[in-house]
């Protein structure tokens, strides 16, 4: 099973992609998936301090588990309105 990762705005531009999949690993949390992603896209490191996360369309904390099949979104500071 895999994890779907969604990227938006400045983060999508830095990574050069808006959507990718990663293999799920036992014990995955938001933080662990994010750190594997940083290995692949080191250019995202500068975004991390202001990044929020969403698991299956809801805001999630870094310690929350990421079950196989989940969708994890990286949410840079929003600027709607």
């Amino acid at each position, binding site marked *: 099973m895999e994890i779907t990762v969604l990227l938006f705005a400045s983060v999508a531009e830095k990574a050069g992609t808006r959507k990718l999949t990663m293999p799920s690993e036992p014990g995955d949390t938001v933080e662990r998936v994010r750190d594997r992603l940083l290995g692949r896209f080191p250019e995202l490191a500068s975004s991390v301090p202001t990044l929020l996360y969403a698991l299956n369309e809801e805001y999630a904390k870094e310690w929350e588990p990421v079950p196989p099949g989940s969708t994890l979104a990286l949410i840079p*500071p929003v600027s709607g309105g």
Partner: protein
Amino acid sequence: MLIRVTESELQPDEAIAAVQTPASGAVNLFLGVVRDNNLGRSVGYLEYDAYPAMAERVMREIAEEAKAQFGLEDCAVLHRTGRLEIGETSLLVAVASGHRAESFEAGHWLVNQIKKRVPVWKKEVWDNGEAWVEGPESLGLQQAPATMREG
């Protein structure tokens, strides 16, 4: 409760009609509009990105909170995405209530919450460059160390 993220032009009349009930004595409509300047810089146009499914979910959450908290008849939140020119409407928030005070307070509260929480992003495009805006009220910036928030 009308909630929508769309690439199409937003229609004030639709939002007003969506919230009105026979017991409504006041309707407040807020339009966020693309301004020709920001932070002293001349803006050419804006490009909005969004996480539509989650944006609609969070907009609905905020609207339900407002309805309960201010005792509203109904409310509507619509956000446009894609390329928007100066003068075009990016955000519509409509609120209907029995009396006027709640309609103004709830409208203002809703827009504040939207700026904090809804996963939508704008890029400013100028003559000679562009940049993604990081909303100073966004939850993401609020959590960052104070030194980063000043940047």
